[in-house]
Structures are given as C-alpha cells and as structure tokens.
C-alpha cells in the first residue's frame, strides 16, 4: 500500500466533525485533498467519529462522486447527459479512449489522465461538453479534443 500523509485528513476530520450530518461533507473534503478516499483515512475517520467503517463505506459507495482509487493529475469527465448524448457524446468518448489508450474509470500509466463519464454538466446548449478538472469545454469535436489533450500533455 502506498504511504500517504495522514495529517491533512486528521485536520479535516477534526474540523468537519463538529455538526450533525457531516459525514458526506467530510468525505468530500477528504477526496478534494487526496483525489480519492484512501482506506487508511476511512479507518481513521471511523475511529475518530465512532461511525462504523461499514457504514462509512456504505454511504460513500452510494454516491457516484466518491472514488476509491488514486486518480491522474487531470480528471476528464465526458458528459453523457441527454443533450450531449444526442450530440455525439459517444463519439467524444471514442476519441478520448483512442488518444489516451484507456477506458472509463482508468488512469494513464504516466499518471496524467483519468477518464470518467458524468450525467450532465449543465451546459447542455453547448453540447457536447467535457470537463477537465475545473475547466469546462463546450461545442467539442475530434480536432478540438486533439488540441486540448496536446495542451495538457505539454503542461505535463
């Protein structure tokens, strides 16, 4: 198992744990920091809050936002909402799969990109739409994607 720094996690747990219903926000903060929910951190969360680990995992796995594996530096979310679906979202995914050599849920060997699907990014009139980390790109086509990926690869 990879060694991870647990300090930020402990700080989050202590800060967030003060109010009712704070489990989901705590998990969100942990994922924001680590990119996923590491087992070790969930164990600490369980010890510190007294919530059984099974219940924490039960809640976390219910929500599609939470991941249990490390992710790449850039997380690519391809929108497969209705508007994007009828505007060629599958084609957009084909291009990403080809360019990166990975499928949904996988991360490239260099640790740079993770490919995911998402239900809708709320920019439906600009379909097809993709979000890379915090940046949303609309009105996409294969050649635009090529350019965008090249740009990210250059950035490293």
């Amino acid at each position, binding site marked *: 198992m990879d060694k991870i720094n647990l300090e930020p996690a402990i700080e989050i747990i202590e800060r967030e744990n003060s109010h009712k219903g704070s489990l989901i926000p705590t*998990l969100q903060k942990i994922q924001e920091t680590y990119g996923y929910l590491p087992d070790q951190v969930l164990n600490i969360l369980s010890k510190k809050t007294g919530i059984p680990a099974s219940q924490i995992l039960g809640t976390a796995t219910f929500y599609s936002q939470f991941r249990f594996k490390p992710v790449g530096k850039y997380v690519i979310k391809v929108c497969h909402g209705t508007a994007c679906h009828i505007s060629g979202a599958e084609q957009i995914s084909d291009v990403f799969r080809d360019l990166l050599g990975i499928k949904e849920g996988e991360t490239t060997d260099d640790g740079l990109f993770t490919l995911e699907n998402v239900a809708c990014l709320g920019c439906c009139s600009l379909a097809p739409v993709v979000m890379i980390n915090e940046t949303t790109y609309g009105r996409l086509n294969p050649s635009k994607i090529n350019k965008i990926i090249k740009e990210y690869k250059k950035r490293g």
Partner: protein
Amino acid sequence: MVEYKKGQGVLNSSKIKDDRVVIRVGYGASGIAAGAGEIYSAIVNHIKEKGYKNIDIKRTGDLGMSFREPIIELESREIDRVILGNVTAKMVPGILDDLMLSKKVNTDYIVAGTNYTTDDDIFFKKQKRVVLKNCGIIDPENIDEYIEADGYKALEKVLKSGDPDGVIDEILKSGLRGRGGAGFPTGRKWRFTRDAKGDYKYIVCNGDEGDPGAFMDRSVMEGDPHSVIEGMIIAGYAIGANEGYIYVRAEYPLAVKRLRLAIQQAEEKGFLGNNILGSNFSFRINIKEGAGAFVCGEETALIASIEGKRGMPRLRPPFPAVKGLWGKPTNINNVETYANVPRIILNGAEWYSSFGTEKSKGTKVFALAGKIVRGGLIEVPMGITLREIIFDIGGGIKSGREFKAVQMGGPSGGCIPSELLDIPVDYESVTKTGAIMGSGGMVVMDESTCMVELARFFLDFTQKESCGKCTFCRIGTKRMLETLERITRGEGKEGDIEKLEELAYNVKMGSLCGLGQTAPNPVLTTIKYFRNEYEAHIDEKKCPAKQCRSLIKYVIISDKCTGCTVCARNCPVHAISGERNQPHIIDQEACIRCGICYDSCRFEAIEIV
C-alpha cells in the same frame, strides 16, 4: 440581419446619463465554458493598456443566449444598450476602441439592442422574464445590485406586515405550483408545514437538478442567488422555520460559490441572521453539496442525504411537511419555486396569475438544448405552444433537418412528436401526452436521433441510478434495459414490445418513489408515438434514423472520395486506409461506427447504409 431602429429593439433603454460606460460579460458556467474568461481578461488588459477611464466591468450570470456565447453587453449614453455575440478575445480591442473613441459599435457583432432590431429579437419577444429578470443583468456577487433591482423589498414587506398567514394566502392566490416537476400547489404545501406540530421546522431548497439535459436551476443559482435566498427567508417566515438548507448538485461548483458569497453578504446586511431587519424573526441558511446521485432529487432521499446517510427514498406519508429533516416538519421546494416568491409578494398574486392558463399560472423557465438553432435558457408564460417555443424562440432545427420529437421531463418524462407541437405548455396538457412538464429540460431531436436508442439511453440512466430498494425498480428496469439493448443491436424478437409494455406497467406499480414510477415513461412514449421504429429494428433489423451502431455501416463512395485523408487521420481506430489523392476504403471489421469520418468528410463521400 441587424437594422438600426431607434428605440425599437428588445432591450430597455439605458438609465445612464453621464459619461459612465458599463460592460457586462456573460459569466455563468455556460458562458465560461464558451470562453468568457478569456474575453474578460482581454477587456481588462486592453482597458489598462489604453488607460480608458469610467468603465464599470461586471461579470453577470448567463443571460440565456447560449447559442451566441460568449456574449458581452455594452451600455453607455451614446450607444444605449447592445449585446454582442460570438465574441472572441481578438475582437475585444476593436470593440473597446470603437466604444471609447468613436462612441459606436460594429453592427456585425450585435445580436440585440435598444436601437437595433435583429433576427434574434424573437428569442426575447416571446419570453416573459419573471424568475430570470436579473439573470445576465446584475452581478450576482454584489448584493447591492440585487438590492437596487428591488431585492429584499419583498422580505421587508412581509416582515412589516407581521402576518405569516397572509403570506401563505398570497402564494395560494397566485396559483404558483412547484417547479421541481410534480406541480404541487406551493401555498398548500406551505400551509401544511405551517400547521404541522413541531417546535422546530426547516426550509429546504432542492437544487439537485437531476435531469441530465437541463440547467434552469443552475442558471438561477449562479445568476441571481439572492432571489432564491430571499424566497427561502420569506418561506421560513410564513411557515415558522428558522433554518434552511440549500442542496446543490455536485457538478455545480460555481453555483455553490455564488450562493455561499450571497449568504455571507445577506448576513452582513442583516437579511439573514438574528432579528432580521429589526424584527423578531431569525433565519439562517446552510449549503449542502450533493455527491452525484440522481435519486437524491427525490425529497425524502434528499433529506436522508442532508442527514449524512445513503440517499434512499422512503414511503410517504408521513410527508416531509410533517416529518422531514431530523424528523422535524420540513418544507421542500425547488430553486425556481423559491425564486418566484419575492416577485409574487412584491407585485401581487393577481399580477402573477395574470400570466398562464387557468390551472397553470405564471411563467416557466425552460432549458432548450439539442438540435435546435437557438439553444439556451428561456422563460415563457404557461400556455404558450411547444411550436412557439421550438420554432419561434428556438429558431427551429439546426442544419436544415426535420424536427422529430422533443424530450420533456428527462428520465421521468417522454418524447413528444411533431403531431402534438400545438399543445399548450401547461401541467395537464403535457401530462396527457405521456411526458411530464418536469423541471424544464427540453431536448429537441431531429430525424438523426433513433427513438429506440433514446429509450435505451434513459433506461440505462435510471437503471444505474435506481437506489435498489424496490425490486421492480432495481430488476425491472434492468430487464427493460436488456431488452432495449437487444433491439438496438438487431437481436429483437417478436413480442419484445409487448414485454416492454408489461414490464413498464409493473415497474410503475411496484416502485415506492417517483424514480421507478416514472422510469418507464421514455419507453412508453416512444412506443406510443414511434412504434414503427421499434418494429423496423425488430422485424427488418434496420435503424431508420441510421444511428444504432450494430445496424449500420459506413462506406466510402469512391466516385466522390478525393483522397484528402482527413477521415483516415481522424478515425480513432485507424480503420480507414488508402493512398493520398486516391479513393479510400473502410475496414468494416475494425470500424466501430462512431461516425467521425462521416462528420469530418467535406465531400459528402461517406454514406451510411
């Protein structure tokens, strides 16, 4: 076409009397995705470089003209108000120099104005903007702009009245119905929660916006967050609640940011907190971010999610009005419902109910997307026809294709065919078609969309999003999905349609929450209106829309192929080969039928057979 006609355009006159210039950049999530960030920087940089003075640059929410984004609005005494569309960073220096030095605008860029009439005017002319009145106009991160636009006056009015029951009566009289989909009368819900016994009550705002293809609530939360907050405070006062929660979808970080800022500013001004505006009423608001589960839009699941649990719906009654968050009486409404409240209180129930039809009062916000010319965010009086929305406001179908259907209500809704385009848009008429009004998503489809494939798409969605509690919803949707997958693969059998209908009935009847009860709607409406497409897949193994990948082939017409190699270079699986300047050929074994070659060919040399 843009024509100068003094005072004849769709925008109101500017109130600026001095030398000030205002520039508004459409800066909602949609505008930003279209490139508004670059435009904003270009404006700031050029102003600095040239040393222009007296310019006020504002970042607003989305105005709704997604089809022209990025957009900016210019306002000054000389040019009055104009909106420029499809702006690029390169255009910015020229636009600013024109504006500041020669006091004019390049008419090529104008998409709307006070003194200009344009082809896009009809986009605004048929709208009635009540909820959206500030979206794209005010800076949502500055509470003073909301206040200047009569913000928090409604709150002041109800606090002064000292009559919570009167507030509920007014909402009842307005005829406002919940905008989250089901259309339950808002005043009645408020009354239930007010009458419920309890020492502590909650107000919850549903900003989960689960329909994958809709963005009304996002736009309101980003573009006019204070209107939602004010509506919630008024609801709290009317019902006797002192605490509220806004539950926002995980994919809307900008909405969260702007809501947080708005709450903080409202606290600073005394609109939130203890003894609001000197009254003895106190109210505070918390924000909860969703974590990506469609079912959490359902009210009891949403409450479970706020409590930090798995978002599983539970049986009602008891309704949240009686037993909601932490077991306390809870009033839950949609974002748009709350945003309507301040307008109704300020202008009166009579004013509000003068819009709309007998049973569906007021206006409704819709998100227009899909194969439509003018896709974006609109608000129309209830009772307008679908045809007016799609063909007048929306400008009809893109690239000269034929209209096929409009999907309303997302995964709980259905597809409405062209024969029914003249129905009025109100709760009852839309429900009669088999679709539902829903929260306002309208995805328009042309002849290239296969209706069987679309039904499969929605079932795939609901099947994945089913929380698994009810057997029919969990397994019934799975069986329906498998059947639809077979049909779209060309492996449909006789009796499949009837099997789907039977399963649909059972899933509807055997599910406790709206997710399962409505999940079959997309299948049922497509069978009802497009049965021939199902039959073509099953009997002839053909996809009439030429979309289902297993039933089509892409072939190159060698007479038309110039050997330009574009398709070969774009093919993601390298299935196209040939010498430059010679006709190419597609290896059918390797081809995944993505259609990229078809879209990228400039010589119409590829056909689908």
